[in-house]
């Protein structure tokens, strides 16, 4: 009886192990094999962060460009994505030149002292595959205003294999990543001008990312 229970337990653990392994190494349905280096480039598509500050007195829509970075991706193991993405603070726009100046000033993001905002992927979880697309959550270190915090970013990924059509944009396979997350200005020690946060600027900023890269760059 004892031996039977041990065998049953071992079988259950083995099956559970296989299930976990399959869940974490689910492959994209593409022909590409092996680890690929994906370089972000505006040639592939417009790399952009769009963000919204929704405060009682004012709603501000803005963008950040000047995005660069590389990711390593094995299409057979989406959970293995790693890499760093960064955006230039000086490229942030809100449609009003004066306001853009305030945003980059030392009262806010201090572009002179902290010129980049970056995100480094350290792990990926909850991967789900649909054909050549995947969804998941990237866990990583988000750095802004000189402060680094661990954040979880839900993302979608689309992998397009090289074709005559894709070569018009960039050589190699193309990859698109979209993500949405929120950041609290307080967490990153962004105080702004006195009394502004919470009235004219939201305490939390909603950020959407659109990233495009190619394996042949």
């Amino acid at each position, binding site marked *: 009886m004892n031996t039977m229970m041990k065998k049953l337990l071992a079988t259950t653990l083995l099956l559970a192990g296989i299930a976990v392994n399959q869940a974490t190494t689910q492959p994209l349905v593409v022909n590409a094999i092996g680890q690929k280096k994906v370089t972000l480039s505006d040639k592939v598509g417009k790399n952009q962060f*769009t963000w919204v500050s929704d405060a009682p007195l004012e709603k501000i*829509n803005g963008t950040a460009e000047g995005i660069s970075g590389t990711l390593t991706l094995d299409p057979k193991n989406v959970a293995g994505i790693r890499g760093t993405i960064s955006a230039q603070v000086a490229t942030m726009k809100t449609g009003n*030149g004066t306001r853009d100046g305030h945003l980059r000033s030392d009262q806010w993001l201090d572009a002179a002292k902290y010129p980049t905002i970056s995100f480094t992927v350290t792990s990926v979880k909850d991967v789900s595959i649909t054909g050549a697309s995947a969804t998941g959550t990237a866990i990583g270190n988000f750095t802004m205003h000189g402060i680094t915090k661990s954040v979880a970013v839900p993302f979608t990924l689309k992998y397009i294999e090289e074709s005559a059509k894709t070569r018009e944009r960039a050589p190699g396979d193309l990859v698109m990543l979209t993500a949405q997350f929120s950041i609290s200005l307080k967490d990153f020690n962004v105080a702004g001008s006195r009394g502004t946060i919470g009235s004219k600027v939201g305490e939390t900023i909603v950020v959407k990312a659109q990233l495009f890269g190619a394996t042949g760059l």
Partner: protein
Amino acid sequence: MTKTIAILCIIAAAGLIAWWGVTSGELWTLDKVAYTVTDPLFGTESIEWREEFRVGLLPAVGPVAATLLVVGGFLFWKRRRIQMKPQAVIA
């Protein structure tokens, strides 16, 4: 004369606010306007900023319209005050 200037001030303020409402409705004056562009390959939408001037409530229309309303209101109040003063009776 005072009444005419007061009415003109209020009409100008209303006109400015209507112009602001029709052209932008934005709180701040914009020197760039966001347009949504769709990527034909990926189907994603991105923001493209185009050089364009859109008058906003601040710092343009709001203070000017408010000043005109204050001036118009003050002129009406002054005129009414003069009208309500007791007339001197000449014996």
